[in-house]
């Protein structure tokens, strides 16, 4: 194992896959000469040159569509968004084209493409830079959505995403790029898409949390441990396909569940997983499933309001207290 930053793990994955397959290339705003807005692509230009590491204009719709066309015509593009908040401008290419071309042409084309970049909020950036899009894209058939929380997951899953023959959205966080963690040094290290991981074992309550929310769940678990509550944390890692089996198996042991989701409440991952749990594990539940999400409110700028808006460990603890009837 090597200790790497999240961004270094991503960079290794991209580097290894570009080295392995000449059809893989990366494009996006500031990926080449600037070395990546968040330094994920640092050094790649020097190694692979301007043909395979391509700076784009600020034209999300245009370069995403070029990626889709290039994927249909034999390449494996990695399209970097400076944030998924900007990818809304490219939604037509992701939702109407990348996910649908193969089906509507009766299987005559493939779209092996990765759209990646930071997701959700990253401090006081205001309403248009702070939305979590993983649940929204997971709504659409044909797309896989990955939102890892730790460097090891990031590397193994990004390599799998690049090798996928179908479109994948790979979500990161500005606030996690500097996060350090142990990363497997196994040769050709990949993690299968669609497999959750039990990241902390516990017998009292199951907490489901991915991406940045995993870390607040972890904080909450440490606090709760002091009170004698043992939390089992499941990181789905992949939002779609969602590994409900691992969650249900955990609930069979804990009989209680809290879902932490950085999206707004309506129709998000928490809503969907909550539904599946009530159907698949109804008889095992000792309390209604609780969720911790953003409120149905846009991101405010002002620090106290922003802190109130974003889910934190305290919110998770409250939810755990509710499902364990500790208050």
């Amino acid at each position: 194992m090597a200790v790497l930053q999240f961004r270094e793990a991503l960079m290794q994955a991209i580097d290894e896959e570009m080295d392995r397959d000449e059809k893989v290339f990366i494009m996006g705003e500031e990926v080449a000469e600037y070395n990546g807005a968040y330094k994920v692509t640092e050094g790649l230009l020097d190694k692979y040159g301007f043909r395979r590491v391509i700076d784009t204009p600020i034209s999300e719709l245009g370069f995403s569509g070029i990626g889709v066309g290039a994927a249909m015509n034999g390449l494996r593009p990695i399209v970097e968004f400076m944030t998924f908040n900007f990818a809304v401008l490219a939604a037509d290419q992701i939702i109407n084209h990348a996910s649908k071309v193969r089906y509507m042409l009766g299987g005559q084309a493939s779209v092996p493409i990765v759209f990646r970049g930071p997701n959700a909020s990253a401090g006081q950036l205001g309403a248009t830079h702070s939305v979590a899009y993983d649940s929204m894209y997971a709504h659409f058939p044909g797309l896989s959505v990955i939102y890892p929380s730790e460097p090891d997951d990031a590397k193994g899953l990004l390599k799998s995403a690049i090798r996928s023959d179908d479109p994948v959205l790979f979500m990161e966080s500005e606030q996690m790029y500097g996060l350090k963690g142990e990363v497997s040094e196994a040769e050709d290290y990949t993690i299968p898409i669609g497999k959750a991981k039990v990241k902390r074992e516990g017998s009292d309550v199951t907490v489901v949390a991915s991406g940045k929310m995993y870390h607040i769940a972890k904080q909450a678990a440490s606090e709760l441990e002091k009170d004698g509550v043992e939390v089992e944390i499941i990181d789905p890692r992949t939002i779609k396909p969602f590994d409900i089996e691992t969650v249900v198996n955990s609930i069979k042991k804990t009989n209680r569940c809290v879902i932490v989701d950085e999206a707004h409440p309506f129709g998000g991952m928490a809503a969907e997983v909550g539904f599946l749990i009530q159907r698949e594990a109804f008889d095992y539940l000792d309390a209604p499933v609780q969720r911790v999400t953003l409120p149905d409110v846009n991101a405010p700028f002002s620090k106290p309001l922003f802190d109130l808006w974003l889910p934190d460990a305290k919110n998770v603890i409250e939810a755990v207290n509710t499902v364990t009837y500790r208050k």
Partner: protein
Amino acid sequence: MANKEQEAIFTPIGLNNSENGKIDKSVKLPPVTKKKHKSLGLSEDDVIEMYRLMYLQRRFEERAMQMYQKGKFGGFLHLYIGQEAVSTGTVFALNDDDDIITAYRDHGWGLVRGITPNEGMAELYGKATGCSKGKGGSMHFAKTENHFWGGYGIVGGHIPIGAGLAFANKYQDNGRIATCFFGDGAVDQGSLHESMNIAQLWKLPVVFVVENNGYSMGTAARRHTVGEIHERAKGYGMKSALFNGMDALTVYENMKNIADEVRKESLPYFVEIRTYRYRGHSMSDPQKYRTKEELQEYQKTDPVERMKSYLLDEGIVKQKKIDEIEEVVEKEVMDSIDFAEESSFPEPEALYEDMFTGTSHFHDDRR
């Protein structure tokens, strides 16, 4: 604020618009080429085949329209009738492995790029034997093995994809170019402008072609966009061309020169081809936005009739040969209706097929 008498007007008025009592045409057609097929490098067999393909597109769609009106199939049906010279001239001008992508008015393109009438008609009927296995319908004809990447239903949505096809060709240095066709309505979409900027910046071997048929659905070109469409290229420093799309030889001549240059120089091109759509936008279009007189004016320049007259006037064929071609095409089209009607609908399992190239995953799949 304007009162009733001085009502603010936004979109220019189109109805009953005339200049000096003459119909104000929605598209003004540039002159056709004076060159004969030989000096364009086309053989007699080539022009005969061009006629056959144009007649096939025309009859295929006329019959499809009848079947649609009889309620044989549903969905949208956007007819290409009147524009056949554009697809035909272009396909002859391109190499067979050059890429073509177009919008939803795609039947003609498919037929010229090797979708058989059977595969086409069956697709309209939603049958498993259709070119897209009945999954796409009228708007999504495709034959990717022939480098026809299909018809697309979001206006302007396929324009960046066309640039992407060209990107992959350049990246792989395979000598192919990509051509991307869309209507005058798509000119107003931001996707075109982003694609043009990037294509010029990255020197992508792509030809963006506006088939200006005079109407963005029911809104005349002069009512939905400013200036001359082909002049947009200037803003991007892109080469451009404007020519008549009612004559297959004119389309061939221009597209051949453009394709050669795009291939040699690896540069994009922006082309406005002026043509005319005889039928409504789709089958539900009452066509209240144009006059019968205007339609009749353009029908005088009919591309299919023009090619037939050319073959006869140049002594390439006699009427008997024309009759033979038309008879064969007619039979082929009628047979395609039988084929479509006799073909099976996709099996229920097909619902879940063709979603993924790799491992399939369907959320909450309880089959």
